[in-house]
């Protein structure tokens, strides 16, 4: 018997922000239900697990501070990804640009005289990071603009080269002799270390908020933001209007690299104080998910990055309740997929078609 066919038809009206929030909420609930089923299937109490997750993420002042700190690199990478996406370019390589930014900044932070005042060291440190990340992105950006090299694939490849290069640095020329062959560089000089802003929250969050404002300004205020979107949405119209498509493309990706490089420097400066293997547990990749979840909107990214960081920290906290931290990892993916699925599904009308007799 032929089954009735399910067909998805695009809805023609754009969803309002309110509708999107409702859908995202529904997706989140769906993920929690799926996660609870999975937890129960493996013999863990979902209520205990979610309780531990929440406490680890936002339960105490210390947890909130840790979550805010962890949100910074994710948010910064996500702003860059969103910026590149304005020109319809995919920056999959934020992770690599983050590492290259961290390498460049550490180079400054290790080789300046130790007594350099912060007023000198700090700008140099962060400029180096921005330049490092931007240069790494440029390796993908320039061939993208000139010969059309696929930036999704090239930025991905460059990421792995950057991570291997970092490993080389911290095990080779920059290895800390005092670290007993741990893959660490020595700490960067005092002047290059970002201090604590309030409680356990370090200054990185200021960069994160400033990043949101900058992206907002690019969207709303700067003519440059307009060009970015025209190049992305209507490249032919852009050319007709006298916009240099290539320059805009390069700038979009290079700016994305600069954001990611900054994220790397903040990790070194405020979090680890040194370059090390595994500096980022994949912040650059998480940022892609965060940027997508937030629909590439600046303040959406700020909020989504904090929630995502909470999920990361909550996952670690699960261990206290004897629940494997893998549950946290699974929840990350489940939440993302459920939210995307609900939002995606809501863009379509589902219709059941009556089975038809196929012509022979």
């Amino acid at each position, binding site marked *: 018997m032929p089954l009735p066919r399910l067909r*998805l*038809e*695009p809805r023609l009206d754009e969803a309002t922000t309110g509708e999107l929030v409702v859908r995202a909420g529904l997706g989140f609930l769906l993920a929690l239900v799926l996660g609870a089923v999975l937890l129960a299937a*493996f013999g863990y109490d979902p209520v205990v697990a979610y309780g531990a997750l929440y406490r680890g993420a936002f339960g105490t002042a210390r947890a909130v501070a840790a979550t805010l700190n962890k949100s910074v690199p994710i948010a910064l990478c996500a702003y860059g990804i969103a910026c590149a996406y304005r020109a319809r370019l*995919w920056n*999959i390589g934020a992770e690599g640009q983050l590492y290259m930014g961290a390498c460049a900044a550490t180079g400054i932070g290790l080789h300046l005289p130790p007594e350099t005042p912060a007023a000198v060291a700090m700008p140099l440190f962060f400029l180096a990071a921005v330049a490092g990340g931007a240069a790494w992105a440029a390796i993908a950006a320039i*061939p993208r603009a000139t*010969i*059309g*090299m*696929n930036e*999704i*694939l*090239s930025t*991905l*490849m*460059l990421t*792995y*080269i950057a991570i*291997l*290069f970092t*490993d*080389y640095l911290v*095990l*080779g020329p920059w290895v800390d002799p005092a670290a007993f062959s741990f893959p660490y560089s020595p700490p960067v000089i005092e002047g290059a270390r970002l201090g604590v802003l309030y409680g356990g929250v370090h200054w990185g969050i200021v960069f994160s908020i400033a990043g949101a404002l900058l992206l907002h300004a690019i969207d709303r205020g700067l003519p440059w933001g307009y060009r970015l979107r025209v190049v992305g949405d209507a490249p032919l119209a852009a050319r007709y209007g006298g916009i240099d498509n290539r320059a805009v493309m390069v700038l979009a990706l290079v700016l994305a690299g600069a954001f990611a490089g900054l994220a790397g420097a903040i990790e070194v400066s405020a979090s680890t104080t040194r370059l090390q293997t595994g500096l980022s547990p994949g912040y650059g*990749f998480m940022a*892609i*998910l965060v940027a*997508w979840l937030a629909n590439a909107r600046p303040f959406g990214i700020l909020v989504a990055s904090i929630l995502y960081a909470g999920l990361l920290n909550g996952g670690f906290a699960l261990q206290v309740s004897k629940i*494997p931290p*893998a*549950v*946290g*990892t*699974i*929840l*990350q*993916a*489940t939440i*993302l*997929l459920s939210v*995307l*699925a609900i939002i*995606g*599904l809501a863009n*379509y009308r589902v219709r059941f078609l009556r089975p038809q007799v196929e012509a022979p």
Partner: protein
Amino acid sequence: MSIELLLAAALVSATPVLYAALGELLAERAGVLNLGVEGTMLIGAVSGFAAATMTGSVAAGVLLAVLAGMAFGACFAFLVIVLRLNQIVTGLAFTILGTGVSALIGKPFIGVPPKVAVPRLDLGGEIAVIGPILLRHDLLVYGALLLTLLIAAYIRWTRPGLILRALGESPQAVDALGLPVAGLRFAYVVAGAGLAALGGAYLSLVFTPSWIENMTAGRGWIAIAIVIFATWRPGWVLLGALLFGAVDALRFRLQIGGDPFMSVHFLNMLPYIATLVVLALVSRHGLRRRLGVPAALGIAYDRERR
């Protein structure tokens, strides 16, 4: 280590990425970019090891790994083909999902010694030169080589292979033929995920052999790189996988030999750098038409919005 043993080791190192890359090739030729290979390999590794340990049968392990990978791939395919979610974001999420799920399933199997071995088949190990390199391996190594040939012939000479190419280049042409674009893409993505899982199972059943969290260590990404390096052609996928295998085998050798950190890291970059160079070469206009990226790669097919 003699050069023959090194090349034999290269072939063994190449096998898991070869399976995964062939699977990714099928998906990408059909127009679907699956960035979840790493996660799928982990699912295959854990389910293969778990099934083989519990049943004591290596065949059961391999079978379950492939089935688990196909189920995982079906979830991915449902989201990106039926619901038309973004392939890049969904693929990344599936890598995260596979990492988490495999860690959860694999918890009881950490440190468990392997109970079974994939049978080896000596096809003439005594023959000079090629004997020790090629003809003294386990069945899965031969399987990978055979599969490469089969897929190459399938894509090149058969009608379904032609349709597979069209799926990635011009799905509207396939649609115009009256063939189900979504259904065919679904099938290739699921088959590809099965192969990726088989590659993962090779790691946990033969290569390592045991279950370790995150044991794929980036091989899924290497597989994606190899498909690009190969410009979506199976024969070149084999070459790319062997290149990676040789680097992998050399790395072991260098690590034994003292203080080689520099050479090891730069050696490890080689597959990625080679891929970048190839990617740049095939971006050039003339070459792109002949060997370039499948035109519809990464784009969900939607009859009403093309």
